[in-house]
């Protein structure tokens, strides 16, 4: 892993088209501003991992469809 020291207001550039700027530092909280091309998706990692895990559990084999079919659109 590459580790860089940056101060508030300083930026790093990744691959010519992604820029990450430290916008504020308060205690142990750093705010980052990210500029990236549209096709790049950016996630908070812990949220992304949680969603991956949730998707794995949302597969249809675990459900008993007849339980759900009694419900109708409102």
């Amino acid at each position: 892993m590459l580790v860089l020291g940056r101060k508030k207001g300083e930026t790093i550039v990744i691959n010519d088209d992604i820029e990450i700027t430290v916008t504020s530092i308060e205690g142990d909280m750093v705010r980052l501003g990210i500029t990236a091309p549209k096709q790049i998706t950016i996630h908070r990692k812990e949220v992304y991992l949680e969603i991956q895990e949730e998707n794995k559990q949302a597969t249809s084999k675990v459900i008993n469809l007849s339980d759900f079919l009694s419900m109708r659109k409102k």
Partner: protein
Amino acid sequence: MKIQTEQFGEVELAKDRVITFDKGIPGFEEVKDYVLIPADAEGESPFFFLQSVEQVEVSFFLVDPFTFFKDYDIKLEEQMVERLQLEEPTDAIVLTTVTVKGDISSATTNLKAPLVINNKKQRGMQIVLNNKDYQIKQALFQADNTAARQV
């Protein structure tokens, strides 16, 4: 085209029903092509399956979140609109995954990360909302919903 489905066995569907998630779905990044199948033939149910065209075991159980959460509201960022090639808001279908552990009453749905599908261009993606009120594990059957259904 014939598709093997987890829930209904082999089904025959028109080729233009295939929806492409060009980034896949988190946890299933390599699986791009799906079909959306209503849970009941009459289309009365708010539940759906998103079935992979290639891998029968990849099939998500989904719900129309607006049926259960009347105030559910999502704002698509410009970037998402462009990526999905959405021209009209009415072309978008919003569905959320359902997880059941044990009893049906414990079912939860992921309001934090809905699947958005462009019904005209057959493109889809799962987006992550910034709204802190929306939970990854939101109980599907809230007390007030249950009450309403029993009336």
